[in-house]
């Protein structure tokens, strides 16, 4: 199959890019490992930041401050200046944002914002945006390839130009390729590596990031993972920040409030983790708001507490913990969102690191990023002219051989589901909210052991069609690649900054006011730190000599 633009991922970033590229006259194919709209975008409740001309500088300042010194002023300025246009674009497509009593668009404060600039559609902002984008894609006859699971990018070894990707067609079990003039990766974040300790949906395993690393590209700042303070204790289901915004308390098992609930997410999460490490329980207490107010303000939350914990928020304390929620790091891209060291390959949304969120993300900026940057990615990919005529490429054959090997030579003597669960647990406890040298080294050695044992793992289901056991296994392989980078980054960043907190280095140290950069040489992971000024042009990243 051949197209102009191949987009991998069907969340908000992928669909915005698709609509833009189609509008510019390109043929577009969107490949997704599930069905379109089954993406984490639908879970975003809080809202969409948009700043008018009076507020835009404050929006830039708020975002820069939240990035703790490692956000790119250029990229942040681009995003904030385009925020109002992005909101208008969504309104023109028919996203029904909430209105206030005067019929004007309603907005609210989010933590860390100086002004009210977060626009919302009840508590279903992401869902309504995503569904409306999908309807628009159907209107514009955009082609979808469903149940297409990304395996690898097709890359020319000499020019480093990407000319498509290989996929496992889950429905048939065949490995297939889609060739394109340019590729946009929009595969989402990697909070899923914290298996059992994440608010994310299944499958947030950083597939796109792992594919870029294997293709010789760069990932950056993977150690920055935002932990959401209030997830349900048993199921890790997200209870929105609105619960605290509306006046909810956090109390420990002694009934004591131990933190100002409205501090930034990283500070609240650390306070909760400290209580839990002292063998105390932590609860969200919204009982004083009363059942009527709760059913009006937090209908989704009421329902989720009932289903998952069997508790009524109006009369019960809700046991909570902080879990992985959003990943700031990702595919290192230049200011055109082109993946560093690769050509014709763009990355956008949570999978990318456009240096917008830096060390911590401002609430309401994630939906803004996927839309505003999605449109830019769609435009830049459309304008990209491939340098080389397509050459023979054996990626398809390699990947067919790899899938065959999983069926025939991977021994399946070790149950990878057990390892996946174990990795999630040790990662959460040692590379989670609070980190230290010993714990990180311990997990890293356990991880490297799992990498060695990978061929002794494998699949029990030998069917070809809809083999989700196989998909889970390949996802686990990607999770191992991504986790190694999280750990190496966290271990070498001997300071605390934003969402990355080292109890052995609790201060911010400006020696580390830089980005952690990851790439592979001969299959071995290499890491270094680069200052923002050195990242701002791809030239320096391209120049870096390969050891």
């Amino acid at each position, binding site marked *: 199959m051949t197209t102009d633009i191949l987009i991998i991922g069907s969340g908000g970033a992928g669909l915005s890019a698709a609509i833009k590229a189609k509008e510019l006259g390109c043929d577009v194919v969107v490949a997704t490992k599930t069905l379109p709209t089954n993406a984490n975008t639908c879970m975003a409740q809080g809202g969409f930041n948009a700043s008018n001309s009076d507020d835009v500088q404050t929006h830039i300042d708020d975002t820069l401050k939240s990035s703790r010194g490692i956000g790119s002023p250029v990229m942040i300025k681009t995003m904030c200046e385009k925020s109002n246009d992005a909101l208008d674009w969504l309104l023109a497509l028919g996203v*029904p944002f909430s209105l206030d009593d005067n019929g004007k668009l309603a907005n609210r404060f989010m933590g860390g914002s100086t002004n009210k600039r977060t626009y919302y559609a009840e508590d279903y902002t992401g869902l309504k945006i995503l569904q409306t984008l999908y309807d628009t894609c159907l209107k514009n006859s955009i082609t979808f390839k469903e149940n297409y699971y990304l395996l690898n990018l097709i890359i020319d070894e000499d020019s480093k130009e990407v000319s498509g990707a290989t996929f496992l067609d889950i429905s048939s079990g065949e490995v297939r390729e889609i060739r394109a003039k340019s590729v946009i990766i929009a595969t989402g974040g990697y909070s899923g590596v914290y298996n059992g300790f994440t608010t994310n*949906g299944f499958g947030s395993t950083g597939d796109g990031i792992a594919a870029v690393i294997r293709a010789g590209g760069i990932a950056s700042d993977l150690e920055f993972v935002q932990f959401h303070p209030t997830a349900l204790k048993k199921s890790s289901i997200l209870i929105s920040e609105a619960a605290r915004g509306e006046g909810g308390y956090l109390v420990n098992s002694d009934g004591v409030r131990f933190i100002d609930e409205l501090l930034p997410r990283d500070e609240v999460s650390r306070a909760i983790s400290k209580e839990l490490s002292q063998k105390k329980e932590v609860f969200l207490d919204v009982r004083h708001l009363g059942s009527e107010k709760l059913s009006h303000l937090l209908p989704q939350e009421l329902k989720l507490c009932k*289903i998952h914990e069997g508790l009524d928020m109006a009369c019960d304390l809700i046991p909570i913990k902080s879990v992985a929620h959003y990943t700031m790091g990702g595919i290192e891209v230049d200011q055109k969102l082109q993946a560093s060291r690769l050509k014709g390959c763009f990355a956008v949304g949570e999978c990318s690191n456009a240096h917008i969120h830096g060390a911590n993300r401002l609430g309401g900026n994630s939906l803004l990023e996927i839309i505003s940057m999605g449109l830019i990615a769609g435009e830049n990919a459309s304008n990209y002219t491939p340098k080389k005529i397509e050459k023979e490429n054996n990626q398809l054959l390699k990947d067919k051989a790899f899938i065959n090997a999983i069926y025939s030579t991977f021994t399946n003597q070790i149950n990878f589901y057990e390892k996946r669960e174990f990795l999630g647990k040790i990662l959460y406890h040692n590379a989670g909210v609070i980190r230290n040298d010993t714990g990180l080294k311990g997990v890293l050695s356990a991880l490297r052991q799992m990498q060695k044992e990978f061929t002794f793992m494998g699949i029990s289901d030998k069917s070809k069609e809809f083999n989700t056991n196989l998909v889970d296994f390949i996802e686990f392989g990607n999770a191992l690649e991504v986790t190694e980078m999280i750990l190496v980054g966290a271990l070498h960043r001997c300071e605390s900054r934003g969402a990355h907190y080292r109890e052995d280095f609790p201060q911010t140290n400006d020696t580390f006011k830089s980005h952690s950069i990851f790439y592979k040489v001969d299959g071995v992971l290499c890491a270094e730190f680069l200052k923002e000024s050195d990242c701002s042009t791809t030239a320096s990243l391209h120049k870096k000599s390969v050891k």
Partner: protein
Amino acid sequence: MNIIIKRFDKYKEPNSIDMSYPVFEGLTLLENFLKIKTTIDPTLVFSGVCRSGVCGSCSVMVNGKAKLACSYKPKNGDYIEPLGYHEVQRDLIVDKNKAHYTLKTSHSWLNGEAKVENSPKVTVQSDCILCDSCYSACPVLVVNGDFLGPFALTKVYRYTLQSNDNKTSIDAIQKNGIWDCTLCGECTIACPQGIDPKMDIMNLRSKSVQSGYNDPNFTNMDFGFGGFGFD
């Protein structure tokens, strides 16, 4: 406690069997599927993403009624099978292409320009998560497989409220659309998001009449002449 899952594999003989699995108490049905897959039987195949009722991927039939697996706690003896009126691909996974193609047939998107002031009118309709529960509950599909079905019509209604240029979509829902609905309300009962497609279809009928369309069921009655006409 046990649940029974109807398994399906077109390459096996017989291609469908009922299998009983223990229930992991306190967990949702989706978490049970995951536990079964990771600890008992890795060949069990199901869909699920968000775990919190907003992605629409995990709907299945429980004792004949469509449920989101992530929002349902299983009970002893529950019988779990794939959604109705969808081709089963494997176990609990169904092909949603045919059902979702109704979105294209019915032009359920914004035609013309958006009327932002009407956003509050579509608060409920725009909560649709495309889980296909309503489609799976609709008895019209037994007799007419080409029926557009509830969720597409609800989406059409949503966009007619948001735009003043609705000719294409109103035209598109006359055949195999609003007039084929029996107004039984099963879709409304099935919707996990509290959407009322039956009411939306009734409203689309009024809009259609305003646009010059008639109820074909009514005209076909022909007051006893059996619709044969006079020629």
